[in-house]
């Protein structure tokens, strides 16, 4: 492997990491309001949350990316491919992550809410001080899975010409034709990145544990 190829792969890996983190950051920003809307006492908010989840959970990341890069310009908006990629990844993952938020909130034992009521907390105090801190801890392992899913989904948005790991790998393959070596290497690369992300999530998990 030439140093130019190595540089291409490293740059691609770096782009993959940025796409993963960017997409996941957007997903989390979406997940909390949408997840909370899903468990709201307000019917309208519940409906909004439901529509978001059903709409974007069903939307293929690939098609979303195409839409942002090729369809949106015809409406007068031109997005950077990387930005469009993050948008497509995050909007889709946001639907999954908001289900994680909803599930974790609903899994907090009802006795906790009853105790908050017995101490005369307002519903929002109960949510903020009692339910959410417990729920967030329960969300972290699932968010970890979401990060890995997000990492793998970045390979899909290569098709809108984002020079991430898979895109650059294909460039090298089209130059040297050595499919086994190139794609074997990519698999290892993704594996290592997944391992690093998972380790980081475990560290966070340990950090927020109370005993």
């Amino acid at each position, binding site marked *: 492997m030439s140093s130019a190829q190595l540089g291409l792969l490293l740059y691609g890996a770096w782009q993959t990491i940025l796409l993963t983190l960017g997409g996941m950051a957007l997903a989390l920003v979406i997940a909390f309001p949408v997840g909370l809307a899903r468990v709201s006492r307000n019917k309208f908010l519940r409906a909004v949350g439901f529509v978001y989840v059903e709409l974007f959970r069903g939307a293929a990341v690939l098609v979303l990316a195409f839409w942002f890069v090729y369809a949106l310009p015809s409406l007068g908006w031109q997005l950077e491919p990387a930005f469009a990629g993050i948008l497509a990844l995050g909007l889709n993952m946001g639907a999954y992550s908001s289900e994680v938020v909803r599930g974790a909130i609903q899994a907090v034992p009802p006795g906790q809410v*009853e105790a908050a009521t017995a101490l*005369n*907390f307002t519903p929002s105090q109960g949510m903020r*001080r*009692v339910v959410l801190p417990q729920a967030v801890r329960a969300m972290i392992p699932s968010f970890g899975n979401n990060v890995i899913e997000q990492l793998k989904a970045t390979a899909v948005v290569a098709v809108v010409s984002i020079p991430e790991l898979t895109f650059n790998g294909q460039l090298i393959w089209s130059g040297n034709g050595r499919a086994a070596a190139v794609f074997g290497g990519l698999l290892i690369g993704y594996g290592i990145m997944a391992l690093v992300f998972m380790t980081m999530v475990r560290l966070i998990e340990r950090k927020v544990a109370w005993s």
Partner: protein
Amino acid sequence: MSFIDFHQVSKRFGDNVVLDDLSFGVANGERVTLIGPSGSGKTTILRMLMTLTKPDSGTIAIDDEYLWHERRGDELVPAGEAHTRKVRSRVTMVFQQFNLFPNMKVLRNITEAPVHVLGTPKDEAEARARDLLEMVGLQSKADFYPSQLSGGQQQRVAIARALAVEPDILLLDEVTSALDPEIAAEVLDVLRDVAKTSDVTMLLVTHAMRFARDVSNRVLMFNEGKIIEDAPPEQMFNEPQHERTRGFLRSVLEEV
């Protein structure tokens, strides 16, 4: 109207009638034990006073203020959040399963409501919390998480947490049912202490009959959503009038 006033309260879950047109009152400072077979509506009474279970019909008032309703002109309308919170502020509850907040250390479990609901300054709330912990014999556990305590210790913390909001009415829902008899005794000792040293109105659901006899000045026997006997403990336990009460007491005492 009595200090606590139930007027024609009914509640059903599906086909199961839990409370059947129930009316009764409790005076300020009274200690009332609710006994009766499971499913007879005792816990539902406590949960309604804590606004955890909504009555189907009837009214409940605390010190002339309706809990589930508010007055608008001459009419009673369903209470808004603010009204309910105001009336509810006089009541608190200790639960069978303790329900301490696992994400907070013991001290913060106790100070959280005084600081954020009552607006007590933090150091004042903490000083008071330490006094309460001393009262329940757990001053050394202030910086522990609930999961590091035994069940009996958790329940004593829960009692301290309830007293920290300075309630006028303390509801105790089978607070020793989840504990071994020996551990339960520690908790009951703490509650005897509370009963002796404060004038808080207490409503308790319990199967610990000797404790009920020691602490309460009135016992209500529930059966199928109605109060079938209402007497001081000596009378209720020594010479119950109702055949159903005699049967119930016999079965409870045999269990031990």
